[in-house]
């Protein structure tokens, strides 16, 4: 997969900047006390493109029974509940989103992912287990790339985006699964906080608001 030089540099800088703090970003917002601001924090427009792609991948906006909601409305709710686009304490969360978007970076997980894998592993040889996990993910990615190609999640087709999410959800690396869970949770929490969704699923909402 050809990579032009400027973007390769940007990617390297990003990976370096994300470094150890990236792990902290993966638990959605719970580590807000523990974040560092990255010098290469992604631009808001790019971030929002990826968030929009996440929303349309996790939620079936195309489903005939899904409420008539635009992705932009759901994105507004998401950013209201999780102010990741503007809260300086959530800079690493922004970086995690952009790392996720970078499909081409998938085969070689960043060092903090591997460190996390080894530290949380209680098997006899955590280093070997981590290498096995990397090999598993690389093979899974190769299958994905053969079927879908593409460098950026947000630019893929809907089917490819959902397959890519699945790749993360079924990763052998715990940090990737955790990011998948986190992203999925943001979108679901944002959607199911809205009355339009309550109505279609038959949830009565707060008794206090029922009159």
């Amino acid at each position, binding site marked *: 997969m050809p990579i032009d030089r400027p973007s390769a540099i940007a990617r390297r800088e990003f990976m370096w900047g994300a470094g150890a703090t990236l792990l902290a970003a993966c638990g959605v917002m719970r580590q807000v006390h523990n974040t560092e601001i990255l010098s290469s924090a992604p631009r808001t427009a790019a971030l929002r493109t990826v968030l929009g792609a996440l929303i349309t991948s996790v939620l079936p906006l195309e489903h005939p029974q899904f409420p008539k909601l635009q992705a932009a409305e759901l994105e507004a709710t998401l950013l209201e509940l999780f102010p990741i686009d503007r809260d300086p304490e959530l800079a690493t969360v922004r970086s995690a989103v952009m790392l996720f978007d970078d499909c081409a970076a998938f085969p070689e997980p960043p060092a903090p992912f591997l460190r996390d894998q080894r530290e949380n592993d209680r098997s006899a040889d955590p280093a070997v287990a981590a290498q096995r996990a990397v090999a598993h993910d690389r093979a899974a990615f190769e299958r994905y790339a053969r079927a879908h190609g593409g460098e950026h999640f947000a630019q893929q087709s809907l089917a490819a985006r959902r397959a890519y999410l699945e790749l993360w959800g*079924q990763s052998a690396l715990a940090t990737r699964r955790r990011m998948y869970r986190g992203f999925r*949770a943001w979108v679901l929490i944002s959607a199911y906080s809205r009355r339009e*969704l309550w109505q279609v699923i038959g*949830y009565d909402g707060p008794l*206090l608001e029922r009159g």
Partner: protein
Amino acid sequence: MRTLDADVVIIGSGAAGGTLAATLSEHAGWRVVLLERGGHFGREFFNQREWDMSNALYAERGLRTTDDGAIPVRGGECVGGGTTVNVALSFDPVPRIWTRWREEQGLTGFSFDPDANDYGVSGLNLARCVADVRARLHVHAPADAEINRNNGLFAAGCAALGIATRRFELNMRGCIGCGFCSTGCAYDAKQSTLVTYVADAVARGVTLIHHADAIHIDYEGERARGVQVRVRETQPGSRPNSLAPGELYVRSKLVIVCAGAIETPALLQRSQHPDPHARIGRGLVLHPSLPFIGRAESEVAGHLGIEGTMYSDHFAETDGFYFECLFGHPLYGAAVLPGIAAEHFELMLSYRRLFGFGAMLIDASDDDNCVRWDVQRGRARIAYRLTEADATRLRKAARIGVEIVFAAGAERAWIASDEVLGPLAGAQFRSAADARHTSELRFIPGRTTITSAHPQATTRMGADRKRATLDSRGETHGVANLIVCDASAFPSSCGANPMISIMAMARYQGLRILGESARYDL
């Protein structure tokens, strides 16, 4: 620096701290200060919206998890602590567990004989304390009419398989069955410490300071001298605080830590409490719980009515797990249900036909499972992994749980997992026969959702100083006027949902302190 002089300072206003504050306030002359990290929210604030309340009332905004992100560890962080946000399940202390703690851990006192006078204190015994707590909290079994269809289906499924069920006892008074226990009771019907013991304590002159971070405990030689506190700005919606924001030092003759099994060991660690055998924080128990979801042919509406009224302790003594009937509002439901896109949405579309319950494992205490204060990150970290023996028991619970779902008449069953189980698509079961594939569950972190709300046993009582941090009075080995009294003090799991066990222990320690006041120069 502002300084408050107290006779007793209590850190944490939940099941333990609230009960202790009320009990100690029975002594008219003592100055008691009750510190709470969370806000003082009440019925006027509880709006029955999951996300709002999760943010305001729960530790780490409801998003606290184990280090690997796999297990949410829910806990109340507000006045009333867990009792403000739990679903009112009230289990008396389990006598066989306390007997085992006496025999194996060398615990003294805590008599179940209602005529006993432990430590020579008149009328001091655990039986009396349980009775006191039950009376104050109005613990009682719900009536037939209060059992909603979700609980009824669960009980019917168990009955069809010959599995005994019981009715939960609940700490409620005048419950209207709104189904919003876990977002704080907007009707003051749930008898949390917020509306019982903390209210009693404040009425009797206890100083409640909320939004109060206990930074560290301060020592002078082998005695605790006080607590360094930072009072934060009061959050919108909270009742007013008794002190303005800023630094505060509470000097006290007796310091009692009731911050729960995650924050208590973290506070002791950052206070550099003596720990010669590296015990503080070790042996964490979580009561890992596995949710089951079934889809019925007709409406269940499990979100309406009292959430949990039925449970089964059929396997409690033989296999160490309970089945407990519970249900979720949409945010919890959406998070637990597997998949994305149409697969997930179509399950949500059947929300009113879903029913649910959980298997709660009484997990073994393992030293590798621990809480540690992370100085750099400024928070407690939770390392936890299911032991292989516990995973084996949870697999058995998973199989029986799926069988119960089908015995209750479901056309489909799920557990919250996307692990590959034999030929199944995800953890979706099409018949009771499919339940056998649960034997392939590996409980992979981040692929199978296990939940937890009962951390315990991280600052344990016991006679052996090499194994335990506290003696039976809850005094820390090494610092006599520092007491720990909460779920962290249990030597292992207390064997059931812990609220009443914690409150009875707190009532007991409170009455003991009243009877042994000279011991603390009070």
